């Protein structure tokens, strides 16, 4: 029994650390600024990080395969600009939204195929993807396009009340991330696709020799990443009710940081999306604390997240070394 607990701790160490840190940071915030103790502040985290959570979930899979996807923020900008442009032309959101998701998937498939078949580093391919997507977004529109579509307005402004918490609410788009999370937990743990993702991240050559569908799985992972980016782009344009090529600057790095803080290793094969959720929440909590403080520069968020990421990479190394012994 003691042995099992020990294994459990070693196998899940990074995840447990992430959750602990989230709880500590949140409670520290609550002590400093009692207003943060209100349930709504907690639910605001989901409102504020709606699109970051979605891209980070996609990013988690990519990083588990030992890849990286730098194109996500570009894709968010492109989706927002393209959907705004289409909606302004009077095209129905029923067509626009699936179209955007298909675009994201196609974009992911293209990048994944280049990575897999031309053996180009994911870093390079997705960086080019970032340039391409953001560039295309600016070609569509140089200025911010306002969305006046009633469906978008409905989605953006309808409050969903949280059961058991009086007056606490989120908006409809904030629910997409948590729903996606449930789907992805299932994918990761209960499907051959998910387990193959982990196997590839550990040792691609072995996975190949085990007869697993390596190429298909890797391309699917990037396609899923593209899907998540496009979905995040839709959520982003709903919450701002506009589209613009300059949206979400640097969000790819926030996503990577959240995934790493969540215990996923950049060396591949280790990590899970629950950790990523907490990584994103930690990111959001730091922002909240700074907002409550009101006097500190918002750039402290970046510094805080940077420091945490660094600490986490250190902790991961320690766990990794411990495991090796």
């Amino acid at each position, binding site marked *: 029994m003691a042995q099992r607990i020990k*294994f459990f701790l070693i*196998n899940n160490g990074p995840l447990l650390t992430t959750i602990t840190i989230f709880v500590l940071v949140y409670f520290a915030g609550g002590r400093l600024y009692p207003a943060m103790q209100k349930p709504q502040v907690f639910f605001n985290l989901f409102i504020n990080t709606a699109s970051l959570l979605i891209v980070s979930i996609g990013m988690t899979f990519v990083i588990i395969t030992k890849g990286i996807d730098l194109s996500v923020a570009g894709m968010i900008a492109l989706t927002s600009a393209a959907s705004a442009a289409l909606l302004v032309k009077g095209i129905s959101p029923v067509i626009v939204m699936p179209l955007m998701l298909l675009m994201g998937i196609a974009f992911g498939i293209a990048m994944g195929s280049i990575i897999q078949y031309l053996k180009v580093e994911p870093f390079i391919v997705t960086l080019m993807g970032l340039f391409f997507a953001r560039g295309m977004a600016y070609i569509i529109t140089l200025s911010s396009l306002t969305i006046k579509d009633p469906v978008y307005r409905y989605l953006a402004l309808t409050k969903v009340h949280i059961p058991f918490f009086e007056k606490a609410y989120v908006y409809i788009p904030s629910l997409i991330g948590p729903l996606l999370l449930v789907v992805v937990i*299932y994918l990761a*743990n*209960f*499907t*051959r696709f998910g*387990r*193959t993702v*982990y*196997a590839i*991240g*550990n*040792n691609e*050559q*072995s*996975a190949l*020799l*085990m*007869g*697993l569908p390596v190429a298909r799985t890797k391309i699917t992972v990037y396609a899923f990443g593209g899907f998540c980016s496009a979905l995040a782009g839709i959520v982003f344009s709903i919450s701002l009710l506009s589209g613009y090529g300059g949206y979400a600057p640097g969000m790819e790095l926030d996503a990577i940081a959240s995934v790493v803080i969540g215990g996923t290793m950049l060396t591949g*094969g*280790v990590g899970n999306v629950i950790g990523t959720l907490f990584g994103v929440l930690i990111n959001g909590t730091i922002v909240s604390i700074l907002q409550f403080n009101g006097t500190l520069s918002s750039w402290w968020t970046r510094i805080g997240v940077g420091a945490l990421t660094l600490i986490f990479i250190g902790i991961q190394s320690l766990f990794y070394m411990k*495991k090796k012994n």
Partner: protein
Amino acid sequence: MADPQNILNMRGITKSFPGVLALENVDFSLRKGEVHALIGENGAGKSTLIKVLTGVEPPDEGSIELDGKLIQVRSPQHSQELGISTVYQEINLCTNISVAENILLGYEPHRFGSIDWKKLNILACQALKKLDIDIDVTQPLGNFSVAIQQMVAIARSLEVASAKILILDEPTSSLDINETNRLFDVIRKLKGEGIGIIFITHFLDQVYQITDRITVLRNGRLVGTYHTASLPRVELIGKMLGRSLTELDEVSKAKLMGEHKKDRQRLVEAKGLGLKGSIEPIDFELSTNEVVGIAGLLGSGRTEMANLIFGIDTPDTGSLTIRGEKITRFSPLESLENGIALCPEDRKAEGIVGDLTIRENIILALQARYGWFKFLTTQKQYEVSQKYIELLGIVTPSPDQLVKNLSGGNQQKVILARWLATDPQVLILDEPTRGIDVGAKAEIQKLVLELAEEGKSILFISSELDEVLRTSHRIVVLRDRKKAAEYSSDVNGQTIIQTMAGIS
């Protein structure tokens, strides 16, 4: 002609690579329920034959018959589907996912569209039970030893591929004696179930321990297939080398010559040198013109001792004196300056840079010694590497060959050359002949003795007792991280084995 018991018949297999005829008209057959050793020096064509059989390389000529049917193996996956599975020395599984997944992923049971974990774990347990292994299959594979990982790989090939033929490529090279015996139990069991096993190894002891027949390859040609029981070891070695054991005789002769040297000077002296958790305090000395062998079982502290003397680890007790000067700062760089060089045990991980050329590999240590800013001209580099290529007999078309394309023995020689190029006075060789063939072993042993003849001091660490006996002027035996005894070279092997085992 065709034995009905044969599950595999390979006939007239020929395969050439640019500039090399790797296999020439080789026949190989495997019976149901037999363990068949595939033996030969490095470059004899063993790996190529296996590659042809597992679909990595298509043969130029020849036919493969499985269960009486002609087959063409298109890819490693295809060979698995046909029932031909390979377990490699470096285990091709994923350490981060559970043991159960490693056995069954790709063929896992499903329930309502999702993986049925309960059933998966039960099936995996059953698969391992067949090999008499009882472990927690839900743990990540990486939590288990290499030996267990190897069994898991075997279990996968039996479960997933329902293997009829199992190829074990150097399976025992990283196992200790208990683990090896455990593997052999598994092999015997599989044999009883009618699976044909091809066993590739450098350990002749194990060949005699476990195999029924032996096929010997040499220079890409078939020497012959023999019944293990009726082929004495000396003849087997003769067939592998294609010559009598004159080279081994030469080793002995070289050693005798060295014995007569009287004017030895003490170079290295360790007094009570030890490090907690690594090796207990040890007294030890090494003089010029001398080869001192270190014998001991795996885990007896051989490598730890080398690491202390070379300054990789810092001792916490005792003193180390080199040329009468007491060492105060322990670091490999300091040791290099004192004229000590270490060839590490694991040449792939710690020594060789496969993607660099022979020349670049040889120059590395020399360049480090000169300092990174002093430029060694290309011409000088070629001179140095050409000198050692000739001196050590490294088989290569040019110094610009990438090291990863060389055979194991030649790679080992390149590492030796790297340190020799720095002209060290003391050379620590940790398992210099591991994983290389008998001929190359004899060459390296001879070379070691010649170096001693020239005045160098050599610490020769090896897990092969014969080799230590043949090569060393003095032998230090380690047991349980302690020095158990020291013998002169006329000691008999049995005494050493008893000391190693702790029977006095």
